[in-house]
């Protein structure tokens, strides 16, 4: 295969991976926007979305069945919805249990981080106890994931890649208009900008924070479904994508919604393409160095722009 073809294919792979990172990163960034806290348990929201949607999808399709295209579409929507719903529910509970009591007590910032880490351990192990601790759970296959839907001269997009990119794009557009157009979005931005003043202006802070968690959780849960469909799902699946998405959120400027989208895509692309980029000699950067390169890029960006590519503020950017 020609190096350019290969590079473009890896670019598409990177875009796919990046859209998943972006979806998860949005959860980090939304919460960071309103609370200035890293929600370390967000990776478990992602994980629970995968499990939740599996439980639903598994009822409707059998492994190896081949429903017609509208059936596939319906199941996909069902999976996204159920994953989003479970993710939202978990995120809502998380806010209630691990964040709100600490907020009421005026706990130090790191206490939130640690309570979230505790919740993260708890959730991932509880899921392991309830379901299983295997590392190779798969969704039933009900369509050919690897069919090339687009194939231009050896540069192709597979079905699952297209599904991930399209649904991620739709969700991001939806979120963007939600935050910039609706009343809820305005209150989120207000809380992010200045919480005490927003409270004085009549914004119910508790409710806004709760809903922010729900929105972020829904996106994360839907991402869990997509990730689980494309690869696998397990009770520890959240950790690595979670860390990457967190890095992506920081890369774009944490607290900044468009920054998180950009950061996610960028990180995905950098990771996937760097070892195979045409200007890199083959074998010069082995695949095992991907993480190192990704983090080095992150460090370099932050050294040049200490608050991420697009800057910090949720209020300002959207």
């Amino acid at each position, binding site marked *: 295969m020609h190096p350019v073809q290969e590079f473009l294919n890896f670019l598409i792979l990177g875009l796919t991976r990046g859209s998943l990172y972006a979806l998860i990163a949005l959860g980090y960034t939304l919460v960071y926007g309103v609370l200035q806290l890293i929600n370390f348990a967000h990776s478990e929201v992602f994980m629970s979305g995968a499990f939740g949607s599996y439980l639903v999808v598994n009822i409707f399709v059998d492994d190896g069945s081949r429903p017609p295209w509208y059936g596939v579409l319906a199941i996909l929507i069902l999976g996204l919805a159920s994953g989003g719903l479970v993710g939202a529910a978990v995120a809502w509970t998380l806010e209630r249990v691990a964040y709100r009591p600490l907020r009421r007590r005026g706990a130090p910032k*790191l206490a939130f981080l*640690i309570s979230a880490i505790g919740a993260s351990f708890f959730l991932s192990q509880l899921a392991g106890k*309830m379901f299983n601790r295997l590392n190779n759970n798969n969704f039933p296959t009900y369509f050919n994931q690897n069919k090339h839907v687009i194939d231009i001269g050896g540069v192709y997009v597979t079905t699952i890649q297209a599904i991930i990119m399209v649904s991620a794009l739709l969700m991001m557009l939806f979120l963007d208009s939600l935050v910039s157009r609706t009343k809820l979005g305005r209150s989120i931005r207000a809380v992010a900008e200045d919480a005490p003043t927003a409270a004085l202006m009549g914004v119910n802070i508790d409710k806004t924070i709760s809903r922010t968690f729900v929105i972020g959780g829904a996106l994360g849960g839907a991402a869990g479904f997509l990730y689980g469909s494309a690869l696998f799902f397990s009770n520890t699946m959240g950790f690595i994508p979670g860390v990457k998405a967190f890095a992506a959120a920081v890369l774009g400027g944490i607290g900044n919604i468009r920054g998180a989208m950009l950061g996610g895509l960028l990180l995905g692309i950098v990771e996937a393409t760097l070892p195979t980029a045409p200007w890199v000699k083959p074998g010069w950067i082995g695949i095992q160095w991907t993480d190192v390169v990704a983090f080095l890029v992150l460090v370099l960006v932050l050294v040049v722009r200490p608050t991420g590519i697009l800057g910090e503020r949720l209020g300002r950017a959207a």
Partner: protein
Amino acid sequence: MKRRSIEDEARIANLKLLLSCLAGGFVLALMVGNQEGTQRDFGYAFREAIFGPRIILFLGIGVLLYLAITFGPRFRPYLTRPGLRPLGAGALTVVVSFTLLKWTDSPQINTGKFRPLADAASATDGFDSLARFFFGSATSVFPWLLLIVVTVIAAVGMIRRSVPIAYTAAGLALLSGIWAEYTSSRISDFLNYPSHATGGAVAMLGFFTIAVASVVSARSQAEVADTDGFIDKILAWRPGMALVALGVIVGLVGVFNATWFSPGDRNANLSLTGTMFNGTGLGGFSAAYLGWLGYVLFFGTLVVAAAASYLRHRVLAYVAVVLGIASTLITLIVVHDFTGLAAQSKFDGAQGAWDNLGTGAWLTSAALSLFAGGGYLVIKALSSGQVAVFDSDHVGTGMRRAAPGQLGAATLLIVLVAALFFPPTATEFWQTVLVSEIGIYVLLAVGLNVVVGWAGLLDLGFIAFYAIGSYTTAYFTGRLPVQPPDWLVLSPLAAIPFAVAVCLIAGVALGFPTLRLRGDYLAIVTLGFGEIIRVIANNANGFTNGPRGAFNIPAPHIHIGPIDLKWGESALGFWYLLLVLIAIIVLLFNRLEHSRLGRAWAAVREDEVAAQATGINTTRVKLLAFAIGASTSGVAGVFFASQVGSFTPENFVLNNSILVVAYVVFGGMGSLPGAMAGAAVLTWLPEFLKDQVPAEDRQMWIGALILVMMIFRPAGLIPARRRKAELSGFDHPASAESTAVPAGEGM
């Protein structure tokens, strides 16, 4: 929004509370049990946990919780009576001893816990009848009945404020405590198994706590308990008396009851050991010790220490300190003598000195050192002129200032004595855990506390420095593919300065480009750094030996003139080495906290801009925090490498970095004892839980514990006194920080 009436609001809040309590019970039902789903049937464990009569039990727990929250406040006036809290703690301790702890290590009893042991023992004829009765030869619920009766009588005495009932309860509790310990020692005699199990002793301590609580309530006139004030008062009344009292309990068990020598299956206490070594050519001095000197030393030191404490007499106190330390050393020398003699004659397969020991000598040594500690506290109090008089006018309030440092010093001494003399009495398993889990992570937490707690920089890649320290050790001992020059191949301990230097450089190298990042940006960069180090270690085959890691790293060895110390055989040796390292580092850091640099860290942590404005070179200060924290974990890395002998990059995964941060915050950010306690508790817990829950569920319980702890005590186990605002508070003014997002405002 529609306005609801106040009654409606209250009703809804009440309903919400009930629902969340039921949800809590539901989650508990999911957590308890050992089922797991399969790939075919995901819902199996869920159904097992939820459908079935057991769910009623768990929902019942939820309802009880709800009732306690709803109606608890009504009983508040009773619950704050003096003595009730310690009573609760004591009763809980006994419950823990009866349910969770091992009462014997003997393989004859399957888990060694109380229940199976009691069932077996109470049915065994020929076993001591008093002990059998304790285990429930009459009725199998007897031990629980005993606990309930004692607790109820004590509680009644406290709530009704009846002095005779309280004294009755105290007497009963005292007897029960002695009975429990007696029973436990009869068990090890009967099973002829040198037991390291703590169940009996813990039950005794629990009962004694109940007894003390009852006496306190009988003697107190206060309506509301002031526990801290009371503790301060006791400590200020006769400095050191608390240590002496503790020493008496420990020492009496040690001298009269516990096993001193247990070759094979015999459990010989002090006098029996004396008889055994009678006429075996044991040195005259040691023979005298086993015969009579041991008792004389114990009681002599006890009398001197008690007198020094009671009379607050300086000279007596010095005598107590000298006598206590000297007789501790004598005890150890004697133990070395007679075990050495036993080993020479290959007595029951002894390998060398210090073999076949029971707990007796160590308990006695602990008691003697506690007496010395008591003397030291007297001297300390006298030289700072802070001897207060026991005076009921000062209940609680004014006494706080009367004894500054007494509580801290007493706790420190007790911890030190426990650290010195407890490990030898533990099983080999626990000794290993103590060294390779607890000790090392305590050291790491102390190091990270500098970065996170004092300087307020969130570092999520701390394990990287630990890895660098370990690999540096492997390099300088010549165990990596890259060899150092021949003249530079070192013993692990000599590698410490190099590891510290390398970690310092790495800390500065990481810090220099990144320190202008703030808060969470720094967190992700450090996290990335940790991953980079690990991936490099995993992939740079030519340098780090890749995923196979380094192996055959020699154990430390000190050979200077006449001193020839070798480590390697037992975990115990490593423990004392580690103890010395921790002690040195903690001493240094304790000085550091209140130094100019420590204050500069606090300033930077609270408000970086203001700190800069007052002339602090913030970059330098932050770099120093990174470098000092990194060098500490470098020391830990050296120790780790030489202790385990081989390691792989898998030892340095990201999860460990996160865990160390959790230890520091769990213990109490910015507080040295807090960070150490947090690390100790959270590394001990998984090993303890091994006996209680299915192994793979341990992390779940720990996660839940961390979560609950942060909800109810966000400042940590032992919060730092000085710390008022939070970490990375330099984004916002400290006071506004906690209220940045007020809860429950708006409409």
